[in-house]
């Protein structure tokens, strides 16, 4: 899974899933994201790195319009998924979020049973015709979230009773249950211990087969381990974007080099 060199060759053959052009984000008077242009590949893992407050999470939240829930937030520019502008007036953010799943920094399972946590998305989107269908979706999602073996005997126990790492994998399973095409992850391992982190990273690598994964991370090692492409953000600017191996071994920009060597950030 850490064989980035081999993966790097795949990247060039993949098509673009998300393309952002001249994206600006304002929080009230603050200009949080400045003129970001980026093309994110389908079926690959893209990492956003950068110091705290550089706008990487903000940009991530633009991709499924979670920023709409913040009153003072304003987004300009184009973000297209499969060539469709997601900020078009005809786009319903609810429909968009079914297509673009999200995993948050802190594991946030619903205070319901494990089963209901997974089944909630498919239920509200009408993905299951009957109970058997739903059971199947729940099992498939939990398997894909690499947590099935741990919870199959207690599907009706509360999801909040699991350990932190299990909760996060449950949240990932919940996100994939609605059959999204893109999976956004906002520092999914920041609340986890090294073992749980390794499990989640392994999972992310597997998810690459079916989804375009975008992951925000503070850990450069993590970015190097799981991603094929890496974007470095600094003070709201996208400083450098390229193959992960290139960013970490041969950065073009001075700031990127300073950051990955620990001089800024």
């Amino acid at each position: 899974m850490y064989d980035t060199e081999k993966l790097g060759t795949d990247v060039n053959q993949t098509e673009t899933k998300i393309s952002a052009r001249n994206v600006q984000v304002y929080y009230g008077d603050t200009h949080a994201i400045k003129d970001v242009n980026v093309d994110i590949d389908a079926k690959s893992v893209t990492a956003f790195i950068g110091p705290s407050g550089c706008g990487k999470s903000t940009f991530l939240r633009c991709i499924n319009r979670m920023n709409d829930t913040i009153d003072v937030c304003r987004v300009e520019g184009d973000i297209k998924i499969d060539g469709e502008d997601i900020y078009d007036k005809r786009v319903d953010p609810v429909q968009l979020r079914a297509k673009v799943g999200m995993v948050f920094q802190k594991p946030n399972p619903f205070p319901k049973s494990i089963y209901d946590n997974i089944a909630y998305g498919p239920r509200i989107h009408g993905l299951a015709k009957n109970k058997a269908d739903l059971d199947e979706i729940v099992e498939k999602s939990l398997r894909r979230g690499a947590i099935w073996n741990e919870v199959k005997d207690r599907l009706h126990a509360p999801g909040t009773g699991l350990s932190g790492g299990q909760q996060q994998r449950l949240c990932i399973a919940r996100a994939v249950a609605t059959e999204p095409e893109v999976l956004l992850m906002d520092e999914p391992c920041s609340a986890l211990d090294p073992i749980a982190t390794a499990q989640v990273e392994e999972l992310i690598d597997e998810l690459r087969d079916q989804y375009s994964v975008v992951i925000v991370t503070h850990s450069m090692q993590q970015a190097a381990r799981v991603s094929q492409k890496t974007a470095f953000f600094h003070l709201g600017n996208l400083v450098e974007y390229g193959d992960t191996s290139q960013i970490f071994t041969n950065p073009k920009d001075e700031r990127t080099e300073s950051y990955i060597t620990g001089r800024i950030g």
Partner: protein
Amino acid sequence: MTDTTQNTGAVTPISSLHTLDARTKRRNAAENRFKLYGMIAIGIGLLMLVTLLTTILSKGTGAFTQTFVTMEVELLESKLDKSGERDLEKIKKVTTFGYAPLIKTAFEKTVEIHGIETDLKSKTMAKILSKSAASQLRNYVIANPDQIGQTIEFRFLANSRVDGYMKGRVTRDSIANDKNITPAQLDFVDQLIEAGALKKTFNIDFIIGADASDQRPEAAGIGVAMMGSLFMMLVVLALALPIGVAASIYLEEFAPKNWITDIIEVNISNLAAVPSIVFGILGLAVFINYMHLPQSAPLVGGLVLTLMTLPTIIISTRAALKAVPPSIRDAALGVGASKMQAVFHHVLPLAAPGILTGTIIGLAQALGETAPLLLIGMIGFIASNMPETVGEGLLSPNSAMPAQIYEWAKRADPAFYERAWGGIIILLIFLISMNTLAVLLRRRFERRW
């Protein structure tokens, strides 16, 4: 780090940890003083609470017992139904005056049966009974006309002076200038007690009965006022809960944050602090004078109390909604739930215990509210019977528990005073059980995440 490693070892410390320096001593003393003040404050509070409760209990428990005289009354056909036809219309023509002789005769017989020696005339003996005795007899006969001619055992209320004598409120000294009772009658009461015909027992009528006129405090009960309070609370619950919760959800989850919502928010907080009598006069002006709803009706009382309770419910509901972590909303929105689904499926269930608690506490506040009721006429002697239908309960004149207590407290007869304290006990039982329910619900449904 490196400095400390150098200092450790056999170096003599500058100060010993086994002796307190002056500064630490002062700090500890200040802390101990503060703890003492706190304990004194709690002590004073507890003392007042205990004083309050013992006063209420010692003065109010008397209202739950009442003195009754048990005796056999012969329902003479010659007095009640001269024609012998058992025609209800004719029987009804006999007024309570017509029943008075029956009671006198009954007293003469009772004296005879128990072998009581007394010089009192039967008319004077009958005066130890409540003025309601004759009407009690009449009501029985009208309900059971076939019993005419039989001898039946009745339990009559003794009048409030006799009751006071049983409870120690009235003594032979205190009645020196009392026209309502004489020492001779008290002697007769003593003889009846000895014979077992006069007893002080639990009086359910105080809890379920209606108010009575100034002349017969012994017959007054708080039951009808309780129904008035109940119907008001139903109105408050039916209006304030949905309106309050809907308003809070909109303000908290959907409304944009701008100056209009800011003004609304400030005004809601202000409304919670408006004196309740203001809501009373508002109710009088709007509901009675303008909308011509009936006076003294629990419906109007309920509407006024709804206005009063709404801010409480809105504030506590918004606090409960705010306490739900935003990560739950994110989680729901993240899997593609609409805002409304996120609120109703996830946020509201988590906020429900807080909302329920706020509502119950709001209701308890409304239940104890008197001032607005004064202005819409839910006070004074309201001689209504138990309402029989919901419509009647909402629209016919009634009082409420606190208003009834106020009414009793201001009447002259000390027997009413005792009932006011008794009413307070009942009201407090309601309030305490509602608050307990609020706490239990919160404990039961509070979920952790």
